């Protein structure tokens, strides 16, 4: 079973997002970038599949900030190959372009299954699983919470919302958008990471941007939500704020005393 996992670096949302001049992108220079959390789930599911059914896991990322760290981490966790797609240039890459470039990478790769996160925080023009599936002409299913292999098919569990789950059989090769892996993503020790990093092993692949891009939209500006509906902030010591919260709850008749 040859599984490709597409990984994306996104700004760490714990940090403040500053806008770059022009106002249509975040300021990438000072931001901390991390692996999209759902891609981490996709990687975990791929590693679990390899452990239960055998095979090879290839991780692929664009040359985005801190992509090397993510790729080495994936190798340290048990991925077999790590590929960095270079030559695309800097800045935000639209979902459609990303999907087009990945589809051309897949055109030269041997694989049975592509896993990627269900969504990412900067998916302005759509989520990768469907964009890539449609681009590559492959069946695709998103919001997947479990994958099992069954010969030429994958058995997948797709969440439909409200806790309802559809069980589906998907002919391979296919693209799956992973919401949650069967277990929490594993950790790697720093010593293991260092060992892998020192060994090198990230393959760089030059990727051609196809001119054949679908129509897109014009992003006028990014801006923070207006503060009109903002919460009234409670200030003071923890004890004072807690007392205010207790009063608020009591005011709704919900706590006695």
């Amino acid at each position, binding site marked *: 079973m040859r599984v490709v996992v597409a990984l994306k670096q996104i*700004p760490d*949302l714990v940090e403040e*997002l500053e*806008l770059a001049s022009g106002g249509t992108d975040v300021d990438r220079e000072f931001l901390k970038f991390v692996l999209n959390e759902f891609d981490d789930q996709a990687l975990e599911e791929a590693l679990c599949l390899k452990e239960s059914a055998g095979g090879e896991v290839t991780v692929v990322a664009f040359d985005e900030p801190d992509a090397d760290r993510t790729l080495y981490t994936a190798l340290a966790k048990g991925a077999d190959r790590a590929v960095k797609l270079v030559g695309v240039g800097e800045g935000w890459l639209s979902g*459609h372009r990303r*999907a087009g470039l990945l589809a051309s990478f897949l055109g030269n790769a041997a694989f049975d299954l592509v896993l990627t996160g*269900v*969504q990412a*925080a*900067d*998916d*302005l*023009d759509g989520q990768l*699983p*469907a*964009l890539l599936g*449609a*681009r590559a002409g492959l*069946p*695709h*299913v*998103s*919001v997947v919470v479990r994958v099992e292999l069954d010969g030429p098919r994958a*058995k997948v569990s*797709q969440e*439909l*919302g*409200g*806790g*309802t*789950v*559809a*069980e589906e*059989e*998907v002919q391979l090769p296919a693209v799956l958008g992973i*919401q949650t892996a069967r277990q*929490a993503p594993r950790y790697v020790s720093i010593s293991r990471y260092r060992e892998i990093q020192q060994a090198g092993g990230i393959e760089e692949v030059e990727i051609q941007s196809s001119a054949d891009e*679908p*129509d*897109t*939209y*014009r992003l*006028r500006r990014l*801006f923070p*939500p207006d503060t009109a*509906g903002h*919460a009234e*902030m*409670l200030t003071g010591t*923890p*004890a004072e*704020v*807690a007392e*205010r*919260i207790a009063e*608020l*709850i009591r005011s709704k008749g*919900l*706590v006695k*005393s």
Partner: protein
Amino acid sequence: MSNDVLVLAEHQEGRLLETSFELLGKARELADAWGGKVVAVLLGAPDAAAELSAADSVVSCEHPSLAGYNPEAYERALVEILRERDPRLVLFSTTTAGLDLSGAVSVHLRAALVSYVVALSAEGDNALATARIYGGKLLAEVELSGPRSVGAVISGSFPAAFGRAGGTPEVARVDLGHVLGDLRITVTSVVAPEAGDVDITAAELLVSVGRGIGSKDNIELVEELADALGAPLAASRPVVDQGWLPKSRQVGKSGHTVKPKVYLMLGISGAPEHLEGMADAELVIACNTDPAAPVFDVADYGTTLDLFDIADELTRAVKA
């Protein structure tokens, strides 16, 4: 190109989703502005057509593979209908079907796509969309001026009432059997959620905990608070995915919808998928150390103090 706006009318076993009406109302507004028609597509639930009365026409298709939601069957049927109708704008919700279909349709039709839309208006001949990105920390204003566009709308963004307005749509039944053979995806079963230990949907007061809690061991701390308040503990998805609390406690798109009188949120950022499950809470109090956390845009009261201090002191305050 036409000036029509087409909406996927989603249903579960024939019952139309609320979001379908939200989209229809917005479609009506835009189609009226552009001088086009509102077209609703209904796959596999012909009896629901009459309820789509805010549409000018309903395209209804029945086929064994459309009896339930099948991503591939839906995609093929939709693409076929869209090629024929060629609407100016296609609207989905960011449901599971929306996540599967909006991107695929935009690729097949070479249409622009904007996802996580929270506002949409006509601006002359164009559409202007506002979308939520970066977990709600930023909004993006996007102009859709091409001949074909697709929008995927976060549920709850538009009032459903406009989508229930009366009228008698013309219903076109189409046979798409020719594109629905040899599917590579088959749905083998649909499993409803199991009942949990507690019913968080019935609670008047909920203490809801998010990833900010940090570890399973820390759950005890908020459990103590919940006990002191006599409230069940609810959670965001990551807490459930990590196995720190059972699935029955999850609030949000893929969990429960709750309507408590007070919803106390500890260490939850306020992602749209979470907010969808608690939008109707009466009083929302949020504790989050990040002053820019989007949760403060929906909460009535907020504090940026540490949730551990707040849980501690609040337990003390209510026990006193």
